[in-house]
């Protein structure tokens, strides 16, 4: 029994390792099992994790090859495996995002104006850059009314989420 359990766990870990390798490889341009440190965020996101920027920085600090700007798979693998096993940065349920938007939309209008959103996203939390802000606005503002219906936005983005 214990053996079965152990082998099931091992299977699980193997599967996780494969997953991590598959996510790492596309960024390993020179086939040296290293990636640029600036790609780590994207890799983590692609593994269905939702870290904050602070989380990413912390993670990098653990795995980077002494400020070389690169991360080797040898160090990435155990750290990332831990993250996945512990489910450290789980996906955010829709309801939570909804609540978050509601904090901004105090009057519960169901939408937010581009200016409000911009101020919010670029001043609070881990601020968006101008580029990120522009992208969000261009993609999701209702052109006629010039507002953002956040329930639609949430539906759209979560519909694209991995199954």
């Amino acid at each position: 029994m214990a053996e079965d359990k152990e082998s099931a766990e091992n299977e699980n870990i193997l599967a996780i390792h494969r997953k991590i390798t598959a996510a790492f490889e596309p960024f390993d341009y020179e086939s040296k099992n290293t990636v640029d440190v600036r790609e780590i965020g994207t890799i983590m996101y692609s593994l269905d994790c939702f870290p904050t920027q602070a989380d990413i920085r912390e993670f990098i600090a653990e795995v980077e090859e002494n400020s070389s700007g690169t991360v080797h798979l040898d160090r990435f693998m155990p750290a990332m495996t831990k993250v996945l096993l512990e489910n450290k940065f789980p996906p955010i349920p829709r309801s939570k995002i909804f609540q978050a938007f509601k904090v901004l939309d105090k009057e519960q209008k169901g939408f937010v104006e581009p200016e409000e959103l911009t101020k919010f996203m670029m001043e609070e939390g881990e601020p968006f850059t101008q580029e990120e802000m522009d992208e969000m606005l261009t993609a999701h503002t209702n052109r006629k009314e010039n507002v953002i219906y956040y329930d639609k936005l949430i539906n759209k983005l979560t519909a694209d989420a991995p199954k």
Partner: protein
Amino acid sequence: MVHCELCRVPDDGGDCMALVQRLFDQKLSSLPSGSQQSDLHLPTQLCRIETKTDLRGGIEANHRTVMGCGVSKSNQFHKHSRKAIRAAVLIQRWYRQYVARTEMRRRYTWHIFQSIEYSGEQAQIKLYNFLGYLMDNFTPSSTERNLISHIFRENDVCWDSEWERYFCYKNIDVPEVYSGPHLTFPLTVEQAVGLLEAFRNKKQQLHSRYVLELLLETWKLLRMLPNINRISTCHSKEVTICGDLHGQLEDLLLIFYKNGTPSLEKPYVFNGDFVDRGKDSIEILLILFSFMLVYPRDVYLNRGNHEDHIINLRYGFTKEVLTKYKIHGKRILKLLKKIFSWLPLATIIDQKVLVLHGGISDSMDLSVLTKVNRHNYVSALRPPKRRNHSSASMSIDIDMDDDLWSTSKIYQRRPSLTYPKPLGPRECFHNRSLQDFSTRIKANMENELENSKKSEVILAAVLHTSQQDTLSVSTDSVSSDNAKDEWRQILDLLWSDPMNQDGCIPNEVRGGGCYWGPDVTEDFLNRHNMQLIIRSHECKQEGYEFCHNRKVLTLFSASNYYDVGSNRGAYVKLGPDLVPYVIQYQASSMTRELTARQSVGRTERSALKVLREQLFAHKSDLLCAFKKFDTKNAGLVSLVDWASAVESVMHLNLPWRMLRSQLVTCKTSDGMINYYDWFNELAIKGPNTDHIDQSLLETLYRHRSTLETIFRIVDTDNSGFISMEDFRQTWKLLSVYLKMEITDEDICNLAETIDSNHDGSIDIDEFMEAFRLTDKKSRLERGRSMFMATTSDLSKLEADPNV
């Protein structure tokens, strides 16, 4: 103080407690000092929050009264601020994850298109090699040879005066009903601009008489140009350099709109690949040629690998010309064949910047290239034959000591192995546009095993024919080494791509094209005392990309190349300081403006459709691969095994696991995939194809481009029809090439399917349509040309016998 529900900040890990606290503290400390503790001196910002009437405030007030926990104003601020911060952090990380995922999708979508594009090019080269081999080894009397020999024939007419006579346009009348531009020579700038206007606004086609006249004048000019043009940016004149246009007239119009048309003050260099794939290749040529005639010292054209009639057969230019110019198309194509061979090979600016289409190699020598007779290289894929040899079998490149057709020597073009676009500073790793997966592409679709089997079959076929006839391949040619070297350099110039690693990976027998590394760039630039290489040839998402320490610049000017929204185009301005200044753009007439993220969805769907078709086309091989994993013969494989099997057959190095959900919708509950069901999902059915053998259909589908190319080659008079007999011969050719057996019965069944009226001829287009073999995504198919808007327009043109 008692902390009740509302004022306690909930601790559930997912809300990044520590972070929120830290950000909150940061915020507090950034407020004017002395205000943190005081209830009375809240900063205006907070007052605003405080005094805003909202439900929450109301609830809190109530709450305060009821619970009596004495929540103070500053605590409210704290609470609200924390809430705001928490909400912001949540939204931000949620949104950034979405952005990163979208970026991944964009990259593999790009990869799909690129790998399919390149494998198509490779298939074309293979086909050409195969046909060339047949040419060199079949006797003059063999039927197969006669079918294809005309594409290898040197230009029928050798002497220039005969050329002029052959292309005499003077007897072509322009009817009164023609409302397009009338050209008189020598051309003036007003006429060139008028041509531009006609194409842009009125969408008119230039009459074939003027086309021929224009082409003749162009040819006369090109003949006088050296192989390598040298220009200078004196008097602070900036040179504008454009990359591949590929028949996308809209992009050229956009460049002229943004940058102005060519003139004495505004010199231009166009870096090849003007034609193929897009739908207005001929119009682009006509515009470029006319401006060149008006400003011969200020408009420079470099040859690209698509300025090649063999490539044009496959990639749409031949078809476009024949469609637009039904009567005189063939003549126009012949003249273009000559013109392409006369296009200069490269341009050097201020002796310091080299502009050429493909790239360099470690053996490239500009002094050799300066002296070469470039017009002998009608198609870069085949070395020139000396003029007076007999047409039977002398080939200066095939050495009988080499393997006849060994796989490793087949030219393979893979996407460039360059550095990704430079990433931003370390802090902003949440947004980027990164390099695609193209560096990881390995071999092409057809595997090595298949190829080596093919070579055996060909050998057998050849030996069989040779029993009656003698093979006479001569290895004797006086300057064959020199010629070989020249040819290799031209091929490299037109086809090479840069890579990350040092070195130069050449190809062997065909000697064509290579991957060159940063050390080769360094060495080349030093040797020639230059500082920058500007080249094109590869599509880049931003329209341009630097590599090799910014010493090589790739420039691509066809935006939305793979699909709407797939990439931007770019052009470069170079002043006397020789610092390249890049301008980007994206033609957007087809749809409203989309952000890069939005357009991913569209492009992704296209790419996946193409990918599904490719998977279907490899069904037999996939089935074999699956069966190896399916030891219990249950028709099921696990996800992991599915991914491995697919990769082992397709060799595209794609993240199959990620793609799986988009490619396979049927799945059993325990996560296994029923691959028979999957094939049913993928199946593409043509009408009434039940009587056709499934594996034949699959082969047809996989090689449809090759099939169509061969049809067009065989269709010597370019009528769009081939005789039944030639149809049969085509299949014989194909069966050798693909090492497949195609029986006479098969051929009859195929002919029947398209319901030819048994008059002895087969309509090529109809045939391709019948088997759903036309690639609906091809640009030629998709939007109709600007010049064929409606059927009534078409019939108007047809009424004019001279167009």
